[in-house]
Structures are given as C-alpha cells and as structure tokens.
C-alpha cells in the first residue's frame, strides 16, 4: 500500500498518511467489512487532504508571488514536499476512484461528533480523523500539551469501541448535523479569536474549519445550515486581515473596507442566497445574514442597523434567549435607536456578570450616553475580566483615552 501511495504522492506524505491510518485501524472499534480497503481509503483520503492543503497553500502563494509558484507547479502540487509523482489529473482520478465513498467520509464525520462524546473530544477527533491533522498540530493550535491532547483522543477512541458507538448514518440527521456544525464553528472561532498574539506559529484553525465546512457541504448537499455556516465563515475570513494592525485589535467600524476580500464576500453572498431560498431558517443562516449586512455596507455609517437588530431578535428566539445573543442585540439596537435603548436592553440581561464583553459594551454605551464616570467603572471591570492579550490592550487604550 505504501508503494502505491508513494507512487502518487511524495514519500513523506504517504508515510505519514499510512501510519496514521494504521494507528487508527489498530485502535478501531468497528472492524469494517473489508479492512484493507478501509485502510487504503483512510490513507488515501489523508494523502489527498494533504495534497489539497498543499495545493491551497500554493494557490495562496500564487497570489502573492506568481513567479515562485510556477516552478513548484511543474513538479506537482506540493511544492514543499517536492513530490515527483502526482499531478492534477492523477489527484482528480483518485477523488473519482470507485473505491472512494462519500458515505464513508460522512460516517466518520458523524462519528467524531457523536453526542456521547464530550465536546472537547469531538473537536479533537474531528480535526484528527477528518481534518487529518497530527496530534501535535492540534495540541499546538489549542495551546495544550501534546500529552493532554493524545490522551483525550485515546479516551474518545476507547469509548467509541467499548460503548459501541456506531459508524452509521442515523435516519434523523438533523440533531447530528447541528452537533457537527457546532463543532466546526467552535474550531473556526478558536482560530478567529486567537488571531493576533503569537498566531504566526499556530496552525490556522480558520482555514481548517473552512475546509471542514466545505467537506460537510459536499457530504450534505442542499443543507441550508451548512451553507449558512460556510457563508458566515467566508464573511469573517474576508475581513480577517483587517482585524489587526500589528498586535492591535481593530474594531469593525475602523477596519479598512477596501482591503476586505470582495471575491470571498461574493462567494458568501451566493451561498447565503442559495441557503435562504430553501426556506428552512436556522441560527447559522441568521448569523450569516447579520454578517452580510456588515460585509456589504460600503462604510460603517451605511450599516443597516435596524435590519441587524431584527435579525438578532430572530436569533435570540432561535437560541432560546442566549444572553450573548441578547448582548449583541442590545448593541445593534443602540446603533439603530440610540444608547439609551441599548442600555435598557442590557439591564434585562442576566448571567453575563463575568463576561468582559458585557462590561465593555456597557462602558461604550454609557460613554455614548454621556456618563463618563460610570463608563470608566465598567471599562475597569471589563479589563479585569479580559483574558486575551489583544483585547486587554484595546481596553487599556480605551481607559487611557477617557482620562483627560
């Protein structure tokens, strides 16, 4: 098997992929009908994933430095791996291979997100088995010791085996798909929010999450929530590079909109249109609608805040009154109807007393309402509670700006 794969990919790619598959097969709960075929499928998917990732990296590089990439493309897809074998046609050939089963991939994805596993285990397994990342990569991405991550995966696999969690596609997919999308969105947010400090050395979880969502969309065609999530991620990705100036967080209203990626926004618009046309609303579609309002406003002042406020009201109902959604709604209402209307809604929210953004929002609204003393107090509380370095710096600056 190694030989077959090596012929098609670089040796280092194939070696890793086969090893991963072997380790999985040895620990595997459900022995497939044809273990050799299964092993081959897992190994090949893994290798295709790697090549795709390398190909994506090459495309990104192509935009930055077209001359450099031409040389790499002539030697195959993975410039870094210098693989003499593969070319585009062969890769396509493999993806279309009769042995390849989309069902199998979907089973694996649903298994990783089975509700009998803890959320942490779901995230780790999804990145490991579906995303094809190594334990070390996942551990680094979440700033955890590799040992911790490895144990988490071993425990999850043991539970899959001993509790008899099946590798099957349930009749009612809805709740399972919700769990799957939640896991992918968690991965996305981890990447999105951790941007800024020391992000350079970390694996890009934003790209990983987008890749996983694209996979989910291929496996669950026509599912509007999957399309909604992908649109949401692309809107955020389009603004990604303008969120920081050095290590400094740049708020939405101050971001350089000319640097937003118009191509990604167009893709997201198309996805969202297709999702909404299915007339099965859901929380990810609603969040994508809100993101679209931001992404398509020419200037911050052009933002359609009344529309955003009503979208948040819908989302609030869909999430059973989530206090974080209520907080966002209060901000939108304050932008549409003034700070006092926002403050009134804030006063009704309970359960966010230890959430720094609750206090930061409070401070900003009090400031706009002209109450500097109360604002200073709220900023101080937010600063105490903030854990992310970029957010701490942002709050420090706001506090310094208050003092005459």
């Amino acid at each position, binding site marked *: 098997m190694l030989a077959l794969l090596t012929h098609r990919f670089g040796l280092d790619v194939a070696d890793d992929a086969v090893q991963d598959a072997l380790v999985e097969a040895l620990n595997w709960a459900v022995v497939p009908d044809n273990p050799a075929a299964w092993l081959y499928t897992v190994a090949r998917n893994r290798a295709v994933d790697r090549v795709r990732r390398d190909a994506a990296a090459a495309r990104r590089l192509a935009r930055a430095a077209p001359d450099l990439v031409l040389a790499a493309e002539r030697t195959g897809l993975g410039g870094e791996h210098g693989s003499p074998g593969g070319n585009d046609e062969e890769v396509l050939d493999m993806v279309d291979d009769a042995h390849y089963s989309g069902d199998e991939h979907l089973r694996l994805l649903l298994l990783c997100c089975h509700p*009998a596993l803890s959320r942490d285990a779901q995230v780790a397994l999804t990145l490991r088995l579906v995303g094809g990342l190594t334990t070390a990569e996942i551990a680094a991405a979440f700033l955890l010791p590799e040992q911790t991550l490895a144990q988490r995966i071993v425990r999850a696999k043991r539970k899959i085996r001993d509790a008899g969690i099946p590798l099957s596609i349930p009749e009612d997919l809805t709740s399972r798909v919700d769990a799957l999308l939640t896991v992918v969105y968690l991965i996305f947010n981890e990447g999105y929010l951790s941007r800024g400090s020391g992000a350079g050395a970390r694996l890009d979880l934003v790209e990983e999450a987008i890749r996983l969502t694209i996979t989910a969309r291929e496996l669950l065609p026509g599912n509007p929530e999957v399309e909604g999530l992908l649109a949401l991620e692309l809107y955020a990705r389009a603004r990604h590079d303008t969120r920081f100036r050095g290590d400094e967080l740049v708020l939405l209203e101050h971001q350089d909109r000319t640097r937003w990626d118009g191509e990604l926004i167009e893709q997201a618009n198309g996805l969202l249109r297709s999702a909404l046309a299915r007339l099965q609303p859901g929380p990810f579609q609603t969040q994508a609608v809100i993101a679209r309002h931001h992404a398509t406003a020419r200037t911050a002042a052009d933002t359609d805040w009344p529309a955003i406020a009503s979208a948040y009201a819908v989302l609030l109902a869909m999430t059973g009154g989530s206090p974080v959604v209520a907080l966002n709604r209060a901000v939108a209402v304050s932008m549409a109807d003034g700070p006092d209307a926002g403050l009134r809604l804030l006063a009704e929210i309970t359960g966010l007393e230890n959430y720094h953004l609750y206090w930061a929002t409070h401070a900003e609204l009090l400031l706009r309402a002209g109450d500097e003393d109360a604002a200073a107090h709220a900023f101080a509380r937010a600063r105490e509670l903030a854990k992310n370095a970029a957010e701490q710096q942002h709050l420090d600056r706001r506090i310094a700006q208050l003092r005459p």
Partner: protein
Amino acid sequence: MQYMILIHSEPMDGPNPGEPGFDEMMAPWMAYNQKLIDGGHYVAADQLQGVEIATTIRRAYGAGDTIVDGPFAETKEHFGGFYIVEAKDLDEALALAAEVPIPAGSLEVRPVMPS
C-alpha cells in the same frame, strides 16, 4: 451487545397494587416491556423498593464495616430500577432508553461487560 439502562428518578407517589388507578399507572410500563420483548431487546428488568427502606454497608480500607440506614448518596433522584437490553450499538440502546416512561430524571446507559 447488552446495555444496562439505569433509571434514576424521584420516587413516584402512586396507588398501590389493587387500588384504583394502579393499572393506568402501570400501563405505559407494560407497553414498554412488551415492546422490548417483541423487538427481541428484552434481557432483564427489575424495579427496586423505595429508597426509604434501603440499608447501606460502608467499608473503608482497613476498617470494619459499618451498617447504616438509608441510601449511599443523599440525592433527590435515586436509582430505582433497571433494564438490560440487547441492542446492536449505542445508538439503538439510547433510542430504547429514551422510551423508558419516566416523567423526569436520568437514564444512564452502560454496556454490560462481555462475558
């Protein structure tokens, strides 16, 4: 695979056998039992008597046993009964457990150690 469904719930106040309303109270349980039997899932089941008459033996490492009145844990929900079912995997076992007709409480599903 065999799974045990451990039923934890608040004690149910209801009529005793022979009193009016008893049969109605038991009807959903009888229907559930029958469903398990018809589907080939039934292995064993039992209900325990009330926790107020439980007696606990406490044993510490190296110390003698102490016999105390009452259940081993003071909680609102008590272990009150169990089913052992035959199911092809955890999903099937969870689906069967979800039909146990308790109004509120917890249904813990655990695989039985294969012999």
